[in-house]
Each structure stands twice: as structure tokens, then as C-alpha cells.
């Protein structure tokens, strides 16, 4: 299969076109406006998923694509780049937004729909897609801003005081993260003279160690703030429980994961040796993120507050995978990154399923407070079962995707000799299990409290189907990854090998580089302890 590189404009252009079409009807009379916008959003999300799946198949067959915007050659213009890692992320986010769409149709109230919720979904998707495919550091910042703006609008739609409060915290702390990214881009341009990621990769090895450390540190802070790692996660628990449950579900599948993806993309490409040099620090961040996230979850009084602390906790596992990415182990270099990618996929599926399931309960009962819920297993047996399976998947029970991800990460950290973090991750898994069982017990077990009227306009039956099916699909996919572990592992292995293949990235983006430039990618700088010989692929 061959694809023309111009298709790489589509992940950004498609959502933008349909979003713009939806905005045209913003002044139409409300019922028509909402119907038209829903239709455009549905078509846009569907088309985007088809596109993402085509790109995924292309990339998993070993294909890589780069496109130069406006045909300006590589170091000067803006490049966009596609490999298996990019394609997996595009497909996952495309899939999540399609799956969430019926839930949104069933539960978004008229006021939010009229205020433009549905076009905003597409703008959020456009920001995420752009951040995935871009091959330019400044362009990455631009797409982060697109994401930030559209997510801020989604967060504050409805305009209750708690939403405004959470929204301001969210936007201020995230803007600080964006500032760090901008600063990193500025320093990169000032010292290396380029913003093209391929070009940065070529020149980074020749820069002084201090410059590398400053850029890497700033990027770590910027992406860490987006991904909600320790100590930069405060914006997440203070804002995620305030908006409509659908919005929380979308955010958990997209926002923090974009930050994680950016780490996966930039660190192995720019300075793979730093992943080893800084391993103790990364391990500390990973461990503290896991522990504080899961301990915080025990103190939470509502479903969504509790689940948002688990989002943080699970991010720690991905950082752990990244930290051992360049360490040689029995599984070869890069296997840690592969598992981190697999864990990210698993987390997107399961976390979104839990937040949708919890959101359905919250909408049905009119409250998310744990001490006001109980005994729902009789009222909503299907939801209760799905929630339990998703909770076990989050905790890492077989045969779910969580089991594969956690077992793999444990093996690779043990094999890399990092037994402390491995022990921490086991304890955190146990605590996660306890916390999730406690949550399930509070909500679905015990004596039923008085039922509240429905919070949305649909009939109960309609709403039940449209809110249960998305959760069922996500849980089924999690089980599928757990059962068909080998194909899933092969897939992420391809992605990880391409992500650590620096010479390959540079050659695809900028084919006119000389042999000496490429040679500089193969030899690590003097400070590095480990050969980056993984360039040839495992």
C-alpha cells in the first residue's frame, strides 16, 4: 500500500473542516442548530476514525511518511511525520471520540449543546491530532494551545461557579506548562538554530551537556504538567470533576495522554542517553506519581474525584516504562517504551470506560457522592458488571489489558535491575485494587438509596442503550488486548522500535542529509554510558 504524503494534512484538516461547518450554523434556531452540528460532528469523527485506521494499517506494515507543509524543504518549513507510534495514538483518540459520541448525544443537555459542545469536540480532536503528527517543536506548542483553548471551553460550558473555579486552575497551571514548552523551544532555537525535530535530533548530540540538560528539563516539566505527573498534577483533580461527565471522559482519554505521547516522541528522539542518565530521577517521579495518586484516591468523596486520582496514579506506570526504555534488558532495548505505549492504550480504554460508567450513574442518580449512592447493582446490572470488569482491568487482573501491561512493565523493570520501582508498582497495584473494589462497593453494593429523577431528556431505555454500549465496547477492547496479547505486543514493539530509531526518523523527514549528519546520530556523546546502537532496531 502506498499513500501520498499529502494525506498527513487530513488529521488536522478533517476535524477543522467539519468543526467550521458546524460553527456556521451557530446562529440558526436552536433545535436545527444542534441537529446540524451533531450531524457534522458525527460525520467528522467517523471520517477521522476511518482515516486513522488507514494510517495505522499503513504504519504497522512498516511505512513511515513525512510531509512538508507548503512543500518548503525540511529544516525550514513545518514537517509532519507519521510512524506506528503516531498512528496508534491517532487511531486510539479517533476511536475514543467515536465511541464517546453516542454517550454525548444521549446525555448532553440542550443548553450545552446550544452553546456549541459538538463543534468543540472536533476542535479538541484537531488539537490532539496536530500534536501527534507534528514534526516541529514550535508547532507542537501551537497545537497544545489549540488543545488548551478547546478544552477550556468544554470545561466551562454550563458556567457553574465550580466549573469556572476549576477552569481557571486548569488554564493557569496548563499555561505555565505551555510557557515551559515555549521556553524550551526558544532555547532550542537559540542554541541549535532549528525547531525541526529531525534537525534537532541531528544537532543535539553536538550541543554542550548543559544545554541538553536545560532543554530536556524544560520539556520534562512542560510535558509532565500536561501529563499530570508528580509534582505538577494539581490542576487535574481540581478541575476534572466539575464539567459534564462526557467531558471528563474525553479529557481522560486525550489530554494527559497527549503529554505522555510527547515524552515518548521527543526523549528517545532528541536525547536517548538522558533517559539513562536521568533514570533515578524519572523513577522517583514515576514512583511518587503512582503512590500519591493512589493514596489520594482513598480520600475522595465522589466517583469522579476518585477516578481522577487514579488517572494520575496510572500515568506513573507510563513514566516508569519510559525510564527503562533505553536500558538494555533481556527483552532488548526499547521494550520498556513498547510496554509504556501498550499501557497508555490500555489506560485510554479502561479509564474512559470507568468515567463513562461512573458518569452514567451520576447522571441517572443526580449525584456522584459515594455516601449517597448504593445498591445500584439491581437497578443497573449491566453497568455494574461492566464497571467491575473495567475496575479489574485498571487494577491489572487477567485476562485484561491491564494484566498484560503491568506484567510486562514488571518484567522489564526487574530485568533492568530496577527492583525498587517494581516493588512500588506492585504495592500500588494492590492499593488500586482495594480502592476500585471500595468504589464499586459504595456505588453498586449495599442498601439502595432513594432514586433520583433522570437528569436528561431521553427516555430511560434510550439513554441506557446509548450510555451502556460505549462502555461495553471499551471493556470488550480491553479484554481483547488481554486475550490477544501477542498481536498487541507486536504492534507496540513496531511502534517503539520506530520511536527509538533516530536515523530512520531523520531520513524520512529530511532525506537530503549527508552521511556525516546521520553518522552523528549513531555515536552517542561522551557522557553517555550506553550505546544508542538500538538505532538498527531490535
Amino acid at each position: 500500500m502506498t499513500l501520498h504524503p499529502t494525506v498527513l494534512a487530513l488529521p488536522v484538516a478533517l476535524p477543522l473542516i467539519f468543526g467550521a461547518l458546524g460553527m456556521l450554523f451557530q446562529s440558526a434556531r436552536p433545535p436545527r442548530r444542534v441537529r446540524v452540528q451533531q450531524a457534522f460532528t458525527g460525520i467528522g469523527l467517523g471520517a477521522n476514525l476511518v482515516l486513522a485506521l488507514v494510517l495505522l494499517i499503513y504504519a504497522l506494515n512498516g511505512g513511515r511518511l513525512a510531509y512538508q507543509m507548503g512543500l518548503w524543504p525540511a529544516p525550514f518549513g513545518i514537517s509532519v511525520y507519521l510512524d506506528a507510534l503516531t498512528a496508534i495514538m491517532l487511531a486510539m483518540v479517533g476511536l475514543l471520540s467515536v465511541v464517546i459520541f453516542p454517550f454525548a448525544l444521549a446525555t448532553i443537555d440542550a443548553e450545552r449543546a446550544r452553546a456549541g459542545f459538538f463543534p468543540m469536540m472536533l476542535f479538541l480532536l484537531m488539537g490532539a491530532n496536530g500534536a501527534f503528527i507534528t514534526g516541529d517543536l514550535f508547532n507542537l506548542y501551537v497545537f497544545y494551545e489549540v488543545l488548551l483553548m478547546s478544552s477550556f471551553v468544554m470545561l466551562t460550558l454550563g458556567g457553574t461557579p465550580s466549573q469556572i473555579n476549576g477552569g481557571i486552575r486548569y488554564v493557569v497551571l496548563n499555561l505555565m506548562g505551555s510557557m515551559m514548552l515555549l521556553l524550551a523551544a526558544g532555547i532550542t532555537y537559540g542554541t541549535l538554530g532549528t525547531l525541526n525535530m529531525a534537525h534537532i535530533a541531528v544537532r543535539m548530540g553536538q550541543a554542550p551537556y548543559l544545554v541538553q540538560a536545560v532543554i530536556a528539563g524544560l520539556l520534562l516539566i512542560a510535558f509532565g504538567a500536561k501529563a499530570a505527573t508528580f509534582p505538577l498534577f494539581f490542576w487535574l483533580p481540581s478541575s476534572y470533576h466539575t464539567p459534564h461527565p462526557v467531558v471528563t471522559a474525553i479529557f481522560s482519554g486525550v489530554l494527559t495522554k497527549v503529554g505522555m505521547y510527547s515524552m515518548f516522541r521527543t526523549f528517545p528522539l532528541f536525547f536517548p542517553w538522558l533517559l539513562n542518565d536521568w533514570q533515578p530521577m524519572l523513577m522517583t517521579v514515576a514512583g511518587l506519581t503512582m503512590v500519591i495518586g493512589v493514596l489520594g484516591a482513598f480520600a475522595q468523596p465522589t466517583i469522579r474525584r476518585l477516578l481522577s486520582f487514579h488517572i494520575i496514579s496510572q500515568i506513573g506506570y507510563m513514566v516508569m516504562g519510559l525510564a527503562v526504555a533505553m536500558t538494555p534488558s533481556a527483552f532488548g532495548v526499547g521494550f520498556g517504551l513498547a510496554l509504556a505505549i501498550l499501557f497508555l492504550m490500555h489506560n485510554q480504554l479502561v479509564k474512559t470506560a470507568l468515567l463513562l460508567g461512573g458518569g452514567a450513574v451520576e447522571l441517572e442518580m443526580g449525584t456522584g457522592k459515594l455516601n449517597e449512592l448504593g445498591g445500584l447493582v439491581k437497578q443497573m446490572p449491566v453497568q455494574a458488571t461492566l464497571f467491575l470488569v473495567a475496575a479489574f482491568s485498571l487494577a491489572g487482573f487477567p485476562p485484561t489489558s491491564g494484566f498484560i501491561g503491568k506484567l510486562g512493565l514488571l518484567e522489564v523493570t526487574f530485568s533492568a535491575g530496577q527492583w525498587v520501582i517494581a516493588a512500588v508498582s506492585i504495592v500500588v497495584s494492590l492499593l488500586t485494587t482495594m480502592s476500585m473494589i471500595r468504589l464499586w462497593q459504595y456505588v453498586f453494593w449495599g442498601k439502595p438509596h432513594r432514586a433520583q429523577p433522570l437528569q436528561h431528556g431521553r427516555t430511560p431505555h434510550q439513554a441506557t442503550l446509548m450510555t451502556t454500549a460505549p462502555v461495553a465496547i471499551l471493556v470488550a477492547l480491553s479484554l481483547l488486548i488481554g486475550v490477544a496479547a501477542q498481536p498487541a505486543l507486536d504492534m507496540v514493539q513496531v511502534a517503539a522500535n520506530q520511536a527509538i530509531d533516530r536515523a530512520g526518523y531523520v531520513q524520512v523527514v529530511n532525506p537530503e542529509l549527508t552521511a556525516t549528519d546521520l553518522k552523528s546520530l549513531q555515536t552517542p556523546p561522551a557522557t553517555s554510558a550506553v550505546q544508542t546502537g538500538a538505532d538498527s532496531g531490535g
Partner: protein
Amino acid sequence: MTEIYLRLVDLILTPIIMLIAIMLFLRGHDLPGGGFIAGLVFAAAIELSILARGAEATRERYGPWLAPLIGVGLGVAVVAGLIGIYGGGFFRGMWVELYIGASKLKLGTPQLFDLGVMLVVIGMAITYLLRLSEAAEAATRTPTAGEGGQS
């Protein structure tokens, strides 16, 4: 109600600022200016009329156009990129030269993109300014709750 002087200033200055905005947009390709700045200047002109006539009257006049304007702007920007595909790739710069009498006018897709940016910025900025002044007016109105507020 609104001040007579402000209304006079609005009557004279608003069209001039709008013209400045259009000028900034046109010179933007080679000189300082461009769609983003032009959009902000244009929004400043509207802000003047918000101050002079009040947010309500301004919303009545421009309100229904704002969101579609953002849509049109985004659409124009994407179309500017798509036209480039005809020339070989997305966002490829394409130019036409028009001769009006002796003067040459160069029009291209980068300017079309800039136009889209300008429309989006106008729509966003005015929406934002209107919301702000509506909130401010509501806040000043509540304590007195009637006519006769002196300044």
C-alpha cells in the same frame, strides 16, 4: 444612558479604525501587520462602539454574525491550504497577479489564509469583549437598580 461625546467619537473613529485594520491586513504579507493584528484592531473598533452604545445594542447589531464568522474564517483558512494541493501540496503557496491599470496586485493563498485568521480573530475577540462588557454592565446595574446613577 450613553455619553454623547463617546457616541460622536464612535461615529467618527470606528470607521477609521476599521479602515486601518483593513490596511494593516493588506500590507501584512511583506510588512508589519497581517491577519491577526488586523483582527484585533478591528475588534478594538467594535469595542469603541460597545463603549458608546452599550453591549446590548452592539450585540443586537453584530451578535448573530460572530459564531458563523469564526466558522467562515476557519473554512477560508482550510480552503487556502486545500488550494495548495492543486499546486502540489497542502498549504503550497499559489499566486495570481492582477493588473489594474498600471498597478500590479499580487494575490495568493497565504493572504487567503491570513483573511481566515482575521475573520476568526474578529469573531473570537468581539464575542469575548461583548461577554465581558455584559458582565460589567450587569455588575454596575445591580447595586443602584434604577435610573439616576451619576458619574
